[in-house]
């Protein structure tokens, strides 16, 4: 009798527990997927309410929805807890009755089981262990294989995952700001920067006027000197003569072949003559010169400027900035560094370069490190200095002959590699400590153009030698080509193609994987300025100042071509909606005139 009751109790409680836990779990998922407090409905309605004041009907609706949401939230939380308590109670009943039901029955086997053969068990177990060990090894190998860098070098795949992972956090951040967001200051909700503080403090009265684009162009050919810009909405037509799409134009006090650099609302260039070497800062929006810093009073600086050729000059090296400091170098070996407001932080002379054309390598920034390629006749070396203080972090002697090329940072499987071209080698270093990763030889002559990289491959070319593609994971040469080679202009690469512009006016497109010449355009002009790719379009200036815009894909089709009006040798700088161009005598900014007016 008692047994029957216990049995029934066990069965009933078991059924109850199963159904109840299923209900609880479904309830849990419902609450999860529909958190009453986090639905967008009320938030949207509130935003509508802000736009249309005094809509009492709408306000009433919000109030009622809000009440509903709150009630639903607390009630669901309450229910969940009650449910859990009931479940635990029933579980207790189940276990107790089950135990009591089985209490009398001790597990006495009905018939004698022959004892297992211990040795047989062990033999089996050994076999299993062998299998398991093999399985573990295979699993590890598979894991290693699938996470190996060689697999990741497949560029499209990498690009895809990059895009995916990029999209996620930005979406999240976007959601977060829209949860709360109403003022533009909510764009950067959690960065406690002074600007933010000012904005926030003043937010109750005024709205900040201009939203500064976060797309930077931190050095020669953009960030990492890779000639790929993430700028959007970039103009495709302008003219200096008719002032079409020209935001501003300003004259540059002193001459130089270096390219403009953009960080935030600031544009940096340098200029120099026999007497003075200067770093200039301009406002991106107005073209107003914000400050000038003269490189003077530097110990070790030569009184007589070294001889340079006219098409190199004393200020051929492009400056670089990390948003906190900006550094510039001149053909005299003078290196100066200023903060963003033009206050000189430090300056030093790196030793007067023995260079028959004039020192021309541009600076490169990596985090807080300033990378200087100093391949001159006298003691060629590579240096990394602290941007903030100028103290040397590491120094690496170089074996290459004199070059005018600039260093780049190539990202290979998410690892930064500092890649330098020299004569005769392309060399990759660890930017943190200068340790050499790999080296490939094959360049010759006067190496003036700079390397480029995409999808784990590094490309470098010099005229009369070859265009060399290196697999940066292994340091092996993938292919060489010599159909068309650049002299001054540097190539640019995407995951599929390498594009380059020669001094005799040919634009060529190679397949990045095989080196096959895909297409070429003979344009009867000269290219010194380097092509830059943004929004899938390749922008390149001819020396005469004609702009060519090609589609940066397998078509390599001419999209736009127009005369800008002035001879241009420098590489333009890109940011959202704007291009800053340096011509021989002036600096100008291109923008959409509708935005400007």
């Amino acid at each position, binding site marked *: 009798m008692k047994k029957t009751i216990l049995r029934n109790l066990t069965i009933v409680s078991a059924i109850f527990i199963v159904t109840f836990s299923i209900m609880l779990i479904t309830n849990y998922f419902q609450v999860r997927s529909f958190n009453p407090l986090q639905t967008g409905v009320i938030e949207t309605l509130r935003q509508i309410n802000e736009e249309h004041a005094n809509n009492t009907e709408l306000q009433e609706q919000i109030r009622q929805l809000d009440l509903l949401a709150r009630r639903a939230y607390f009630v669901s939380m309450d229910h969940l807890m009650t449910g859990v308590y009931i479940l635990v109670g029933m579980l207790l009943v189940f276990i107790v009755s089950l135990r009591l039901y089985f209490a009398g029955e001790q597990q006495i086997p009905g018939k004698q089981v022959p004892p297992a053969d211990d040795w047989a068990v062990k033999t089996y177990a*050994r076999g299993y262990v062998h299998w398991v060990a093999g399985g573990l090894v295979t699993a590890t190998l598979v894991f290693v294989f699938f996470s190996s860098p060689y697999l990741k070098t497949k560029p499209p795949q990498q690009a895809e995952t990059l895009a995916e992972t990029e999209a996620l956090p930005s979406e999240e951040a976007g959601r977060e700001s829209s949860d709360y967001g109403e003022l533009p200051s909510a764009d950067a909700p959690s960065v*406690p920067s002074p600007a933010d503080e000012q904005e926030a403090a003043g937010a109750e009265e005024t709205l900040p006027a201009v939203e500064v684009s976060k797309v930077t162009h931190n050095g020669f050919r953009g960030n990492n000197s890779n000639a790929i810009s993430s700028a959007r909405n970039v103009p495709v037509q302008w003219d200096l003569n008719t002032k079409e799409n020209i935001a501003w134009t300003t004259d540059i006090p002193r001459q130089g072949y270096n390219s403009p650099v953009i960080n935030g609302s600031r544009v940096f260039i340098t200029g120099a003559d026999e007497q003075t070497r200067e770093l200039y800062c301009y406002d991106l929006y107005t073209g107003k010169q914000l400050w000038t810093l003269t490189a003077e009073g530097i110990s070790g600086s030569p009184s007589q400027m070294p001889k340079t050729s006219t098409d190199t000059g004393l200020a051929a090296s492009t400056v670089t900035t990390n948003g906190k400091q900006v550094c510039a170098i001149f053909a005299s070996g003078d290196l100066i560094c200023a903060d963003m407001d033009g206050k000189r932080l430090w300056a030093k002379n790196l030793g007067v370069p023995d260079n028959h054309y004039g020192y021309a390598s541009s600076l490169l920034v990596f985090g807080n490190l300033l990378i200087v390629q100093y391949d001159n006749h006298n003691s060629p070396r590579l240096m990394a200095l602290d941007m903030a203080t100028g103290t040397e972090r590491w120094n690496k002697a170089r074996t290459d002959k004199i070059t005018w090329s600039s260093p780049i940072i190539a990202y290979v499987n998410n690892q930064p590699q500092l890649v330098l071209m020299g004569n005769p080698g392309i060399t990759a270093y660890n930017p943190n400590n200068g340790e050499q990763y790999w080296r490939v030889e094959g360049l010759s002559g006067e190496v003036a153009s700079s390397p480029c990289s995409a999808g784990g491959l590094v490309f470098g070319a010099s005229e009369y030698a070859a265009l060399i593609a290196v697999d940066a994971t292994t340091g092996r040469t993938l292919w060489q080509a010599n159909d068309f080679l650049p002299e001054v202009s540097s190539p640019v690469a995407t995951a599929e193609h390498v594009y380059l512009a020669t001094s005799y006016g040919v634009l060529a497109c190679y397949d990045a994987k095989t080196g096959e010449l895909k297409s070429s355009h003979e344009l009867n002009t000269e290219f010194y300025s380097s092509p830059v790719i943004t929004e899938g379009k390749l922008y390149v200036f001819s020396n005469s100042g004609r702009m060519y815009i090609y589609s940066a894909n397998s078509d390599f089709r001419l999209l736009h071509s127009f005369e800008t009006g002035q001879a241009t040798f420098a590489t333009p700088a890109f940011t959202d909606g704007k291009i800053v161009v340096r011509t021989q005598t002036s600096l100008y900014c291109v923008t959409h005139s509708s935005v400007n007016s």
Partner: protein
Amino acid sequence: MRKYSSALILLFCSFLSHAQNRFPKPDFESGYQYPTFRYPVPDETVWMVADLALLVLLMGIVAWSVIRKRRRAPVVLVSVFSVGYFGFFRTGCVCSIGAIQNVALALVDTSYTMPLVVVLFFILPILFTLMFGRVFCAGVCPLGALQELVNVKHYRLSKPLTLVLGLIPWIYLIFAIGFAVTRTGFIICRFDPFIGIFRLGGDLGMIVFGGLLLITSVFTGRPFCRFLCPYGAILSLFSRVSVWKMRLTPSCINCELCHNACPVDAIRPPYGNKVKESRVQGVKRILTYLIFLPAMAVGGAFLLSMTGDSVSRAHKDMQLYDMAVQNEALPQNVLPLELEVFYGQGGTFEDLSLRSETLRADFGRYAAIAGSLVGLVVGLTLISLSLKRTRATYEIDDAACVNCGKCFNYCPQNRINVKPENKKQ
């Protein structure tokens, strides 16, 4: 004036927070008094003393009842109490199993400090095990106790399978320590299947896993203790050599009832060596394994060190570094929140890049160590499985025995032996 200076100091201290004292403190004219709030703080010292005292007391009771009295009833009571107190009332933290990670981290990282209670929770069960066998597992550990309490029938799994599954706790232990010492995370705590049940809420996945484990443990003894628990792996080392041990009834009649009742398969039946293979072959096998043992360790080290790079992605700083790299390679308008905060706090990409190098080196090193340990574990298991032992009677496997005392109730001889004693009392 003082007000301002204190405000200034506050401002100075907290350059990170957005704003301080944009609005001056109001001068109230109506005699308004600032309300005072008291935030209650649980008296941790009292609880710490209570926890430790109960830990020692309960382990003492189990040791006394199992080794001295040879009775199970007190163990059941201890289990019920432990599930109630350590489990549902104290909600599980800190437990001895999780304390492995704190201790391991403290041993490696000199800058890490931990409270006394953590060390004692780690070391006391070990000391008790060294004295009396795994009395902690018997019923003091709420996880073991819970499984034991719901266990109704013990269907035995195939013996070779249990032997192989017994490898898991070791591998889990090695990885948990590896993740702890690199400060990647405490995976034992994160993947604790029963904590959600004790807290009546938490990560659904883990609760479901815990529920499944509990259902399994209704039908077979202690699946978590046998096939997952890393602390049990440590204790099994000590219980092998404990001073006092659980023993079979001296007047054993080889009735095999205890063998069938044991929830952890710790009682081995007698075994006469019916040699099926020549002695030379057996010796040869052991020698081969012994020779291959270093090779296995080295091979494991090599294999796992190759994964170090990918595994290091589990670390928070490496994830941050990856975000930073992606941002450097392709600057985005909207930074991920973590990165935004990192830069906001004055961090630089270079710091991060250096940090990632050290982390990667660390992970490579620890992965190699972990790999060699896994190789050793596999190798030693194989060697122990190649040893041939003859037994005249039933024997207790000291490493596996959890001192639960279930066998006492089944032993016909134990009743005879114990009863007169009880009557005397």
